[in-house]
C-alpha cells in the first residue's frame, strides 16, 4: 500500500536490472544461451527459474538461436484479423513461425502487439517496422535483408 520510490529494496533493483541485461545480451549474441542465463542468474543472486521465466515471457527475447534477420509478424487482434501475412511470409521464405531458414538468413516469429495497430497488418524485420502490408510488397522488403 505504501511503497514509494524511496522504498525500492535492493532485491527489486536486482530484478530491475535483469531485463536490461537480457536485452543487451540478446542484441549482442542474437539469442540467450542457457549458459549465459545461468551465469547472469548467479551474478545477480537470482534463481535460474526467474531469469528463464522473464526471458521466455517477452517475444523479443529468444532463448534459442535465431537467423541473421528476425521477422516478427504481429499476432495481436487488429493484425490477426487481417491475417494474410503469416501465410505470405511462410510462402516467401519457406518456413513457418518458430522456424529458421536453412541458410540462417531469416527467423520467423509471431509476436505480441508491436504498437502499429493503425497500420495492421504489421511486422518487424530486425528493428524496422512495416505496416499496411500486402503480400505483393513482401519480396521487395525482404530482399533488403541478407
Amino acid at each position, binding site marked *: *500500500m505504501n511503497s514509494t520510490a524511496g522504498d525500492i529494496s535492493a532485491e527489486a533493483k536486482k530484478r530491475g536490472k535483469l531485463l536490461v541485461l537480457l536485452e543487451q545480451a540478446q542484441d549482442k549474441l542474437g539469442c540467450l544461451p542457457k549458459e549465459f542465463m545461468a551465469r547472469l542468474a548467479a551474478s545477480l543472486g537470482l*534463481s535460474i*527459474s*526467474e*531469469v528463464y521465466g522473464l526471458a*521466455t515471457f517477452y*517475444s523479443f527475447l529468444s532463448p534459442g538461436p535465431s537467423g541473421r534477420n528476425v521477422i516478427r509478424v504481429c499476432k495481436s487482434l487488429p493484425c490477426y484479423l487481417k491475417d494474410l501475412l503469416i501465410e505470405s511470409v511462410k510462402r516467401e521464405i519457406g518456413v513457418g513461425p518458430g522456424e529458421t531458414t536453412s541458410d540462417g538468413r531469416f527467423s520467423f516469429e509471431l509476436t505480441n502487439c508491436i504498437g502499429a495497430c493503425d497500420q495492421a497488418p504489421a511486422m518487424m524485420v530486425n528493428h524496422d517496422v512495416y505496416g499496411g502490408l500486402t503480400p505483393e510488397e513482401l519480396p521487395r522488403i525482404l530482399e533488403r535483408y541478407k
Partner: protein
Amino acid sequence: MKEFSATINGSPVTARDGMTILEVARENGIDIPTLCYSPELTLTGACRICVVEVEGSRTLVGSCHTPIAPGMVIQTHSPRVLDARRVTMELLLASHPEVCIVCDKANMCDLRKIAADLDVGLPRFRLPKHYFPMEDVSPYITRDMSKCIQCWKCVKACSEIAKKNVYGIAYRGFKSKVVVDFDDQPMDKEVCRDCGICIPFCPTGALCKPSPVRQAKTARPLVITGTAQQ
C-alpha cells in the same frame, strides 16, 4: 488506527484503515471464496474468484486486493457476482483435467470444493487440456503441472517464506507455466529437502507429497506429450 464504517450485503460493518474488502468480510463471517489469496503471502489477485460488487464501480473488483473505503457499499453474493464467479470457475475447469476421481488431492482440493459451492459442474467450454509429464523424480515433492491453475501461491511461498526462489513463471498467455530452472527436466532440487512449504498452499492436486507407491515405482514414468508441450 482509524476506524470507519461500510456496508456489506446491507449490514453495517466496521473496518480499519488498510484492510481489504475480503478481510473485513471474513471478520464479519461472510465467506468469499479465494484460490490465489493467502493471508501469509503477498497479494496476487490472479484467480478472480473473489470478485465482489461495489456500488459506483463500473466493474466487479477483486476483494482480496481492493482496500475498503469509508462508506463503501458492497455486495458479496449478488446474482451478478455469482454469475461472474461461475463463469470464472468454468474457465478454470475447462483446462483442468477431469481426473478428480483418481486425484490424490480428492476432497481436500480447493478448486473442487469451490466449484461444488458455486454449483458448477461440467464446464460449457471445451478447451484442449494442457498436459505435462508428471514430475515425480524428487523424493521431496511431486508436481503435476497439468492440474496447475497458476495461482502463484507456490512461487510466492517458496520465495517469501522458504526464501529459496525455486520456482519461476515462464512463457506467456495460454502457454504460461510455473517452471523450475530451464523447464527441461522434472523438478528435482536438493534445496527442497525437508521443506515442502509450498505443498499445502497448492489449491489443486498440482503439488503433492510423494506417495510411497510412486517412490517404489521402478519402471520408466509414463510420459504424455500434449500439444501444450514446447
